[in-house]
C-alpha cells in the first residue's frame, strides 16, 4: 500500500513576488540558509532555524533575479538579474554588499553556471549578447576565456552547465538551445564535441550528473529527455520519462545521486529515482507554476531538504527520502 502523498514540512511566505531561483547554504556548525531571488529584484536570505527572512537585499535595480549561487567558501554570493548584470556579493560577517559585477549583455532568461577551478578562481558561463553566443570568463579577474558560437542557427541559449570530467580533460559545457538542440562544448579547445536534438521545443532546463555521466533535460512538452555521455564524449539519447502535464522549469539531482526533482508548470514538484528515473512522488502544494527547485547541502543526510519556489510567491520545504534504507 502506497504511503499517502507527503506534505511540506513548512513554507516560507512574504517574498511578495514570484520566486525564480533558490539556493541552499547549510555548512556544518553554522546557521543553515536558503537564498531566494524574486521577480522584483529582492534577494531573501532565509534562516532555516527560525524560518524567517534574516536579511532582504534589493538587487539589480528591481529587475528580476534569475539565478543565485554561492562559492564553496560560502562567503561569496553570485546573483544574476535581468538587468544583464551578474553581481558578486560579500557575505562575510553578516555583510551584504556588491563587490564586483559582470555585464552579460543577454536579455534572455538563461541562467549562469559556475565551476570552481581552484579555491580562489572560478569560471562563469553565461549567454552573451549575440543570439547563440555563450561567454565564459575566469573570475575574479574577469578574464575572458572564450566565446562559443555554434556554426548552425540554433536560436537563443536557454540553459548551460559547466563541469569538469574526471578524465583530466579541460572543463566541458552543456548548453540547451531554443530549437531543442543539446550541445557539448570543450571549453579549452573551443570546439563542439557533440550535438543532439533532444526536444522539438526549446530546452527549458537541464541538469547533468558528472559522476554518472548522465543528464536529463526538460522542455515545454510532456516529457523529460534523459541522455548519457559515452567514452568518446558523444551525447547518447536514452529513453524519456513521460509527465502528466507539460512544462518543466527546472531539474535538480540530489548530491547523493539518488533523487531527481522537477519543477513543473502544473504547480507540482515531481520526484524521481535518479538511477532508473522511476517516479516516486508528486508534491502538491503550490497554486501556480513552480519556477525552481533545490536540494539542500546539509552534511547530515537526515536533515536534507527539498525546496520549491513558485510563482504564487511562496517557498515550500519538503523532507523526503532522507533516512537510510534500514529505517525507512
Amino acid at each position, binding site marked *: 500500500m502506497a504511503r499517502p502523498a*507527503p506534505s511540506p514540512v513548512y513554507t516560507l511566505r512574504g517574498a511578495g513576488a514570484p520566486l525564480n531561483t533558490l539556493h541552499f547554504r547549510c555548512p556544518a556548525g553554522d546557521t543553515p540558509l536558503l537564498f531566494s531571488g524574486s521577480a522584483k529584484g529582492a534577494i531573501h536570505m532565509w534562516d532555516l532555524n527560525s524560518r524567517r527572512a534574516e536579511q532582504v537585499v534589493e538587487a539589480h535595480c528591481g529587475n528580476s533575479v534569475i539565478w543565485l549561487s554561492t562559492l564553496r567558501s560560502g562567503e561569496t554570493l553570485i546573483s544574476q538579474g535581468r538587468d544583464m548584470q551578474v553581481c558578486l556579493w560579500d557575505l562575510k560577517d553578516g555583510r551584504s554588499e556588491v563587490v564586483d559585477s559582470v555585464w552579460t549583455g543577454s536579455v534572455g532568461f538563461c541562467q549562469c553556471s559556475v565551476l570552481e577551478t581552484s579555491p580562489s578562481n572560478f569560471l562563469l558561463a553565461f549567454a552573451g549578447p549575440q543570439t547563440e553566443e555563450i561567454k565564459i570568463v575566469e573570475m575574479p579577474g574577469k578574464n575572458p576565456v572564450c566565446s562559443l558560437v555554434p556554426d548552425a542557427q540554433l536560436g537563443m541559449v536557454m540553459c548551460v552547465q559547466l563541469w569538469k570530467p574526471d578524465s583530466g580533460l579541460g572543463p566541458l559545457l552543456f548548453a540547451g538551445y531554443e530549437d531543442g538542440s543539446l550541445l557539448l562544448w570543450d571549453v579549452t579547445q573551443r570546439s563542439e564535441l557533440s550535438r543532439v536534438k533532444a526536444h522539438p521545443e526549446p530546452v527549458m532546463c537541464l541538469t547533468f550528473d558528472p559522476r554518472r555521466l548522465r543528464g536529463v533535460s526538460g522542455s515545454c512538452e510532456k516529457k523529460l529527455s534523459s541522455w548519457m555521455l559515452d567514452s568518446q564524449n558523444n551525447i547518447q539519447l536514452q529513453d524519456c520519462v513521460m509527465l502528466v502535464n507539460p512544462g518543466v522549469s527546472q531539474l535538480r539531482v540530489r548530491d547523493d545521486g539518488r533523487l531527481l526533482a522537477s519543477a513543473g508548470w502544473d504547480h507540482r514538484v515531481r520526484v524521481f529515482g535518479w538511477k532508473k528515473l522511476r517516479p516516486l512522488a508528486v508534491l502538491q502544494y503550490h497554486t501556480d507554476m513552480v519556477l525552481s527547485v533545490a536540494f539542500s547541502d546539509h552534511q547530515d543526510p537526515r536533515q536534507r531538504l527539498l525546496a520549491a519556489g513558485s510563482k504564487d510567491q511562496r517557498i515550500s520545504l519538503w523532507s523526503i527520502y532522507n533516512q537510510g534504507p534500514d529505517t525507512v
Partner: protein
Amino acid sequence: KLASNVQRKFAAAAGAVVAQSLRTLSSSADHADKIEALKTLNSFLDDAAESGATSAAEREEFRRAHYSRTLRVGVGLLQADWMSAAQRSQLVEPLFLKGPPDQALLALMEAVSQLSPSAGLDRLVSVTESFLQSGRLADLLWSSCLQSGLPGSPQLDEALLARLTALPDITANKLRLGNRPLFAPQRYYPLLASEMLAALERTCQALRDGTDCSVAFVAQTLGKVCVQGHSGPVLAVMAPRLAVCTRSDALWQRVCWKLLQNVPERWLEGVLTGLVQAVKSPEAFSRIVGNLALTNKKAQFVLTHKVLLLQYSYETQVLRTVLGHLASDRERRPLLVQVCAARQAFWCSERCTAKTDCNLKISYIFLKLVYLIRLSLVLFTIDLLIKQTSIMTVLPRPGQVSRYFSRFPINSFCPANRILRLFCCRPSDDDLTPYDMSGDQETGQASPPRYLRDCLETLMSSEDSERVELSLRVAESLVRRNVFAAKEISVQMTKVLLHMEDKYSISGFLALRQAAMVALAVTDSVPVTQYLTAEFYSLNYSLRQRLDILEVLALAAQELSTPFADKTSPSAAAPELTSYPATDPAHWRQVVEKRIQSKTRRISKGSTHRGTKAAPNRYAPAAGYFFFPLLRNYDKPEVTFDLLGSDHLVLGRLIHTLGLFMHLAVNAPVLFMHLFLFCLMVRRGVLFAVCAVFLSMPSQSLLVDLGEQLFETRTWLSGKNQIKCITTEEEKKNTIFTKN
C-alpha cells in the same frame, strides 16, 4: 572431407608461394624481383583486398605457419640499405603492423635487444613506435582474450608478458640516451593502461554478443605491471574509467571482478593497494572490486590487515575507502567487525603505548568506528552486529577514549556523519518506496465559469490563459441560457469582447468572440445595437474592429429575422410540468380519447404536422436600431476613420451590411414607410462605391481584372437612369433625414 582437402591444397599452395618469395628475398640479386616477392607477402596480410590474389584460408595459413619466418626476413630487410625509405614504409613496415601482434612484438623486442646501434636499429625502433601508436597493443590483448578455449603455450605467454611489461626497460637499456619519448615509463604505462581498457571494452561488447572471452592475460599484465611498481600511472588511467563504467553497467562490473579474480595471487597486493589509492570513493572501489575480500584470502589479508593495520604510509582517504568498502555491504561487514575487534584487542593489551601506534589518525577513526558500532546497535538493526556481541567486551577503557578525543578536536578530521554514512549502504532506486501519486491528474480540467458575471470578470481581468479560454468558450452558451443576467451586463460585456485581443493564441478565437457578441446582440438587441452602431463611427478603433461590428450586426439581424426555433418553448414544456394526474378533472377524458384514437383506423390521416409555428418577427421592432445609426455619419471623416476616403473597404462592407438589413427587413412593417427612401440610399451608396472602385484602380487592370463586373455594372446603371428623375426629387428629403 572435401572442404578439408581443399583447405590442405590451399595451404600447400600458399606454403609454396611463401617459400618461393622468402627464397627470392634472401638469395636473389635482382631488386625488382625482391620487391615483387615483398608485394606477394604483403598480399597475405591484407584483409581488405578481398578480391585480390589470396583467399581467406591462405591468409589464415600464412599467419599460422609462415609469419614468424617472414618477420625474421623483415628484420633483415630493415637493416638492408638497397631499399628506399618509401619502399620500406610501404612494403616492410606493414609486415610488422598487420600480422598477429603477439608474434610481431616478440620479433621486434628480440631484434631490438640483439642489434647493435646502427641505422637498422633506428628503423626498427621507429617501427616499434608506430606499432605502439597504431593501437596494436590493444589488438594483442584482445586476441589473448579471444583465445580462451585454446591451450596456449605457457612459455610463449610468459615471454610475451615479460616483453610487454618491461618494454621501457629493454629499450632504455639498448638505446640509452637515444631512447624515444614514447618508450619512457611515464608515457608507455598510461598507454598500456588505455590499451587494456580498450581490450576490456571489446570484451564487454563480445560478451554482449554472446562470445566467450577470457581476461586472464589482461589480468596477468595488470598484475605484473603493478608489482613492478608502475601501479600509479596505470591505475590513474584505469580506475576513473572503470569507476564510471561500472556505475551503470552490470556487465562491466562482472568483467572487473573477473579481472581481479584472475590476477595471480603473488601480484594481487600490488593491484589492490594501487587501486585503493587511485579510486576516489568507497563506492567506486566496491563496484570495481566486488566481494573479492570474501572469496580470496590474499585479498582479505591485504585489505583488512596490511592496509588498515600494518602499513602506515597511506593517506587518510585510502583508509576511508577501505573502511567504507568493508562497511557498505552486509556480507563484508563481519570483516569490519573483525578488524575493529583486532584493533581493540591491541589497544587493550599492555603493549599499547602512544609510540607504538604511530598512525594516530587511523586510531582515531577506529575509536569512532567502535563507538558508532555501539551506537548502531541502537540506531540500526544490523543483525550481524548483534551476533558479534563479543565486541562489546573489548571496548577501550573510558579514560583511554577521552585521552584520544582530547588530543584531536572533533572538527579537524573526519566528521562523524562521514563514518555514519559508511553504514548506510548505497542502495539502488528499488529501495525507495514511491508515495501515493494518484493525485497527479491532468490540470487541463480547470472548471469553466458557471455564472455570467464570473465569465465577464475573467475576460476582463484574468491573466490566466486557460481560464480566459474556457470563459470565452462558454460565453455564448451562458448568455443564451441566462437571458435576464445577460440583459444586465449586455453592453458591458459587448464592450469587453469588442476590445478583446487574442493574447493567448486561443484556437478559434475570432469565431468564439463573434458568437458571444452575436448572442448578446440577439438577447438584448436594442442597447447592444445602439452601443455597437455608436462605436462604429467613434474614434479609436481599428478597421478589423469596425468590420467585426458590421459582421456581428449582420449575423444578429439574420438570427433575429429567422423564426424563433426553440425546442423547449414554454408552451410545450408547461403542461408536462404542471399537469398532475389526480388534480386534473379532464384527465380521464384524454386517456379515453387517446385509446379511441389508437383503435381507430383511418384511411387518410391528413396532415398532423402543423408547420412552423407562427411567431412575431423579432427583427421588426429592432430593425431601425440596426439600420439608421449606421447611416448617420458615413460622410463625416474622422482623423482615424475616413469612410469616403481611404477606408473604402469598410464602406463596401457597410453597404453590403445595409443591403442585408434591408433584405432581412422584408417582413418588418416598421420599415415600409421608409422603404423607398432606403432603396434610394442603398443605391446611392452602391453607386458611390462603384465610383470609388473606378477612381482608385488603374484603368488597364480595371479592364483586365474586372471586365465582367464592369459589364454588369453598366447594365445596372442603364436601368437606374430611368428613375434618376425620382432620385433628384427625393434627394432633399434624404438630406433632411440623414441630419436627423
